[in-house]
């Protein structure tokens, strides 16, 4: 066991830290997901990272990567440092491109598709959205109804997707469809990459509880060439499972919990309310320490998974589900704690006089609900651990 980065990795981490301090526009900080008005800033920032070869560090050279031999932890370190710098939104975009879609495409995609898309992805020229869930298919993704009808060289795709975050700013939709007529459940599904501007695609933005934007995607006989099929036709479910484990690991990164709480603890150190130092109050001290310890557990699980995925063939299904589940468990608990300690000040929102930490925690209280559902809800992830990890029997649906 060694909980240190290698000298190469450490040097890379400090380089990323300096790079972010120097090149990252302030406007990108403090967002869970990047909205349309900041996309051009974000793409310019990602482009600078891509120019340094960082997006494709672990990818083979023939697809525009650096070969990946030197440092298996590059992707992990990049995401970690982005969270450290309060850039969760950028980390999410990056993990769509590299962590989830790039890696899954690399593993299962056709040579033609890899040659066409990966070099442009690793150069930060393309944006993606993940298009799985539907109005009637949330946790139960195997029940989707969006259908792809075989029409010669193309699929004709019709259906409706819901909660497709970043669809409005994407170039491609990573779309789960039912490609085999008459199939049920997880048999007969496929993943296709659909250009977001194709005729028949309609994208409507709507707002979540605290102003976070997400989208509804309507598809009406959208004609997608079959070469945009990802992996094997009809094997979408197994590709999806792999992609989901990567998603839970990278997008649902535990640093998105620990780093904001770290900033909160820093605030507590210096805060005074009515002349009383918060850090001198034994109740405050005990509860901050208690949450700090709980959060340490999640960070450790994240780290275990990160270290194990340095082996590209390792899919951290259980570790990822544990991180996601635990992050959901703490979502409201940590927000409650922070708001209770800040008292009424904590309720002041961004832009209000006297709002501590730019009103971050008042906003977080609304966001916390979102954390319960993204990338599979808390109980779905517990089911994965129970059935795949502990070997408990499946329950009858």
């Amino acid at each position, binding site marked *: 066991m060694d909980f240190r980065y290698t000298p190469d*990795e450490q040097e890379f981490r400090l380089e990323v830290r300096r790079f972010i301090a120097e090149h990252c526009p302030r406007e990108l900080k403090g967002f869970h997901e990047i909205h349309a008005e900041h996309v051009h800033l974000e793409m310019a920032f990602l482009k600078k990272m891509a120019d340094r070869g960082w997006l494709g560090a672990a990818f083979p050279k023939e697809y525009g990567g650096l070969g990946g031999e030197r440092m298996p932890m590059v992707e992990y370190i990049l995401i970690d440092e982005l969270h450290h710098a309060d850039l969760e939104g950028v980390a999410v975009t990056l993990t769509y491109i590299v962590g989830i879609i790039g890696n899954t495409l690399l593993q299962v995609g056709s040579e033609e598709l890899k040659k066409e898309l990966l070099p442009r992805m690793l150069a930060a020229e393309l944006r993606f959205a993940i298009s799985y869930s539907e109005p009637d298919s949330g946790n139960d993704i195997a029940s989707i109804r969006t259908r792809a009808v075989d029409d010669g060289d193309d699929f004709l795709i019709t259906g409706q997707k819901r909660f497709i975050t970043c669809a409005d700013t994407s170039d491609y939709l990573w779309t789960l469809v039912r490609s085999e007529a008459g199939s049920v459940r997880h048999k007969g599904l496929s993943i296709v990459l659909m250009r977001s501007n194709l005729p028949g695609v309609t994208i409507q933005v709507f707002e979540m509880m605290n102003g976070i934007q997400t989208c509804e995607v309507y598809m009406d006989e959208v004609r997608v060439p079959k070469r945009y099929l990802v992996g094997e036709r009809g094997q979408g479910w197994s590709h999806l499972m792999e992609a989901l484990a990567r998603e839970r690991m990278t997008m649902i990164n535990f640093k998105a919990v620990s780093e904001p709480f770290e900033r909160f603890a820093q605030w507590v150190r210096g805060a005074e309310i009515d002349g009383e130092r918060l850090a001198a109050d034994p109740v405050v001290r005990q509860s901050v*320490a208690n949450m700090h*310890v709980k959060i340490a*557990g*999640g960070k450790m699980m994240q780290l275990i998974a990160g270290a194990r995925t340095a082996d590209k063939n390792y899919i951290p299904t259980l570790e990822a589900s544990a991180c996601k589940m635990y992050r959901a468990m703490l979502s409201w608990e940590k927000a409650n704690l922070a708001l209770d300690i800040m008292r009424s000040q904590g309720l002041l929102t961004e832009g209000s006089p006297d709002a501590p930490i730019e009103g971050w925690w008042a906003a977080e209280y609304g966001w916390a609900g979102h954390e319960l559902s993204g990338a599979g809800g808390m109980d779905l992830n517990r089911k994965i651990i*129970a059935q795949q990890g502990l070997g*408990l029997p499946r329950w009858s649906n």
Partner: protein
Amino acid sequence: MDVNLTDEQQMMVDSAREFLRDSCPLATIREWEKLPDRYPRELWAKMAEMGWTGAIYPDTCGGMGLANLDMALLMREMGRVALPSPILSTVLLAGRAVLEGGSEEQKRSLLPRIAAGELLMSFAFTEASAQPDAATVKTTARLENGRYVLNGVKHFVEFAEQAEQVLVVARTRESDDPEQGLTMFLIDARAPGIEYVPLRTLALQPQAKILLKNVQVDASAVVGRVDHAWSVLDPVIQAATAILCGYMTGIAEGAHELAVSYSKERVQYGQPIGAFQAIQNYLATSWAKNTMGEYLGYYAAWLIDQGIPSREAVSTAKTFVGYAAVESTQLATQLHGGLGATADARTTPFLRWAKQLQQTLGNCQYHETIVAAEILDKEPTRFDEKYSLAFT
């Protein structure tokens, strides 16, 4: 970054697991409770043969020179079968304090005997607060005519009556700084003036309150430097705490395994109860927390081995594992239904040990105050930059 065991560690763990599985079937666990000293002496002798009782001592003292992390891995295996033994008090606390602070003569006379499984020592440090804190020590040792005279009361001393030697921590000098003025004394457990008040504990481990009434010892009984015991004791207690986290992880996992296997066997409403989502949710959550605690413990032990500042990590691990082990063992008891509450329930030793060890070497509340001091009173460490740590 590497979170895997080395080949040597894996071999050690595998052979320990195999040995303990063969020597400790569930039925014997409940039999141990009926033994006079509540631990299996024959097994202790076998553990000594395998080198476990001297594992962390150097080979010059009859040991194997294992790192703290290795010892935590070994202790986890003992925890998985809820094996009670004097390993904490004798090997990890009293013996190790002698190793770190004692004279060559003291080390030579005591440590090989501990490693051989022949000598039990008790560690008389804790007083009424049960906190592993220098300020807790009120017992005094006055120098009179070249001899020390000890007076005071030590609480919760494990295996006190069974031990041959007792390591007593006493205050030799009053000081504004409670970490100054402490001294360790090596005393014959039958010395005049020592009285034992046997205590009956939740986990059935033998403990006693030790009354020290004008106990007289020669200056040769001092272990380490007079007035400066804390510089030895603090790291010894820190390491023992990190290693104990391994044992507690084992306790949590042993109970969890019982709960999982019972949930697969027990049929109600026409199906195994483990098929119910409510049961799956419990067991999945508990698995996740046990795994987190397991690695927080390894991390703390590893930091100590590397000489990297570790106080926050040790207290974080002890707190996390303390809560997780209690939760896991309570869950295992709960999932066994009425059976879990019967007199001879197989989950009971795990349930009792988790709670007892949660209070041992500082409970969760104590360690939370340590964590609070580290994160709220000190400047942020930036250890990640200094030591290249990936856990930040």
